[in-house]
Every structure is written in structure tokens, then in C-alpha cells.
């Protein structure tokens, strides 16, 4: 198995938390935008456009973490240990951040 360079390994290491941070930032921005544009009142199937818009970035981050988790061992070999933990942290942090979106009232009323 070929050895992976330092910066690439670093990229794998921070991939999980970075995916969470990106999803959180996008969801935060979409939440404010949705409140201003009245998305909670627009239905998309069984959920409101507001919930769908906020949940999508988180689902994308979860999907990315799962794909990377499936490939981390094959790519990094014996150095996969800590990057795998980073991906689990990103995955669980995204789940916790997304959970309130599915149940909590949006836009304060």
C-alpha cells in the first residue's frame, strides 16, 4: 500500500469536523433566509420547505462522512485510525446539530 503524504493525511483528519462546520454554516444562513422569505409556510411533501432546506446540507455532510468512512482504511492503511475518529466526530456532531431541525419550531412562532 502506498504511503499518503502529510497534507493529504491532514485533509482526511479534518474532513469530518469540516463537513460538520460547513453544513452548520449553510444551515444557519438558510434558516435566516427561510424565516425572511416565509419558507415555513411552504410545504414540500410532508415537511415544510424551511425544514427541507435546513436538513439538506446536514444530510449531504452525513453522506460525505459515510462515504469517507467506507474509504478511509483503503486509502490510509495503518494511518487511518485518527482520521476515522475525526469522521465519526463529524458524523455524530452533524446528527446532533440536525436533530432539532426536525422537531423544533422555526422562526420563533
Amino acid at each position: 500500500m502506498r504511503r499518503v503524504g502529510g497534507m493529504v493525511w491532514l485533509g482526511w483528519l479534518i474532513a469530518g469536523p469540516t463537513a460538520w462546520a460547513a453544513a452548520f454554516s449553510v444551515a444557519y444562513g438558510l434558516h435566516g433566509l427561510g424565516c425572511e422569505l416565509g419558507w415555513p409556510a411552504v410545504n414540500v411533501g410532508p415537511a415544510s420547505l424551511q425544514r427541507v432546506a435546513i436538513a439538506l446540507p446536514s444530510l449531504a455532510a452525513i453522506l460525505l462522512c459515510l462515504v469517507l468512512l467506507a474509504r478511509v482504511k483503503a486509502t490510509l492503511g495503518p494511518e487511518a485510525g485518527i482520521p476515522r475518529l475525526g469522521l465519526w466526530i463529524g458524523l455524530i456532531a452533524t446528527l446532533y446539530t440536525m436533530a432539532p431541525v426536525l422537531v423544533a419550531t422555526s422562526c420563533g412562532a
Partner: protein
Amino acid sequence: MKCAALATVPLVLAGCGGPLSTLTPSGPIAQDIAWLWWALLAGAAALALMVFVLVALGFGRPREVAEGRWVFGMGVWFSLAVLTVTLVGALWVGERILPHGPALEVQAHARQWSWTFTHPGAQGPTETDGVLHIPAGQPVDVLITSSDVIHSFWVPQLGGKMDAIPGRQNRLRIEASRPGTYEGLCAEFCGLEHAAMRFEVIAHDPAAWPPLPTTEGIRP
């Protein structure tokens, strides 16, 4: 040194009481917030205790430590359990204190560095400076606005806090269980006289609501 540290304890605890304390709630909304505060304190204390025990184990002679139990059992699962319970508690309380359902509406307008309130009166809407009149025993929605900078409306014994933002109107629900006078303040730094930007909330007996125009400070 120990005596000096112990002497500060009553001073610190003295901040837990008084008219501006969230730990002496006087209404159901403030009660929910106080409950959440205690739950978060208990969770934080449990996690701190775990860390202290871990540090204590580091002293003394080297010994065998069950790493798996500490790293995963306590470090991951215990911490996640505390986080999950407090998250669910916060969501539950957060939903309960939102302005759902009908409520009496009053207006609070902030400026550097005073508050003007408008509420229903016996002969039409009335306006007061620095004193908000509400009925006790029923929910009240405060519609909050500002004409200059960002302020924040907060009556710790009656509810949460809400920013007063120029150009928009925010809604905050408060409720007093019993008639009485409660203290409020601006909770967002807004300039030199920020600390003096206080106000009072007078909760009236429902039988005496709305207050007569002759009530002190009320003008039509």
C-alpha cells in the same frame, strides 16, 4: 488564602437571589427557564466530576486503569448521554416558552436609554415611560422595537430575553403568576447609560385590569 476563598462564597451565592435573579422565578415561563438552568448545571457538574475523578486517578502510584471504560464508557457514552438529555430538555423548554396561542399584546419601544410601553387601558391604549403594566395570571406578548441601536428586553423573574432591533419587531411571551412589581433591564450593551436602562413591570390583579388612566405614570 483558604479563608479568603471561603469568604467569597456568600458573596457569589448572594447573586442567586433578588429581583433580577432567574433562580427566583415568578411565572410559569421563568420557571421553565430556571428548571432548564438547574438541569444544565447538573449535567455540567456530572461531567466535571468525571474529569476530577480522572485527574485524581493520575496521582499516586502507577496502576492499571481500564482504558476502554474511561475512554468509551465515560468519555464517549456518558458524555453523549448527558448531552442528549440536556439537548432534549432544552428543546422541550424552548418549545414551551414560545408565543403559541392567544395572549394580551403590549408594546415595548427602546431607545438610548429608556423604555416606552403601550398597553390597553380602561379608555383605550395608554403609554408609560419606564413602567410596563400587565395583568397577572395570563400570558402577555411583548412586541419589542428600537429606534436607534440594539437593546434587549429582559424581566428575569417573568420570562426570557429578546433583542430590540431597529427596523423590525420581535415578540416575547412573559407571564406573572401573582400581582406584584418586577424589575427589568436592558440586557444588551447599548452605550454609556446602558446600566441605567432599567424598568419596572407591574402585574395587576386580573379583577383590576385594565388599569385606570389615573394610575401613576399612565397617560392616554
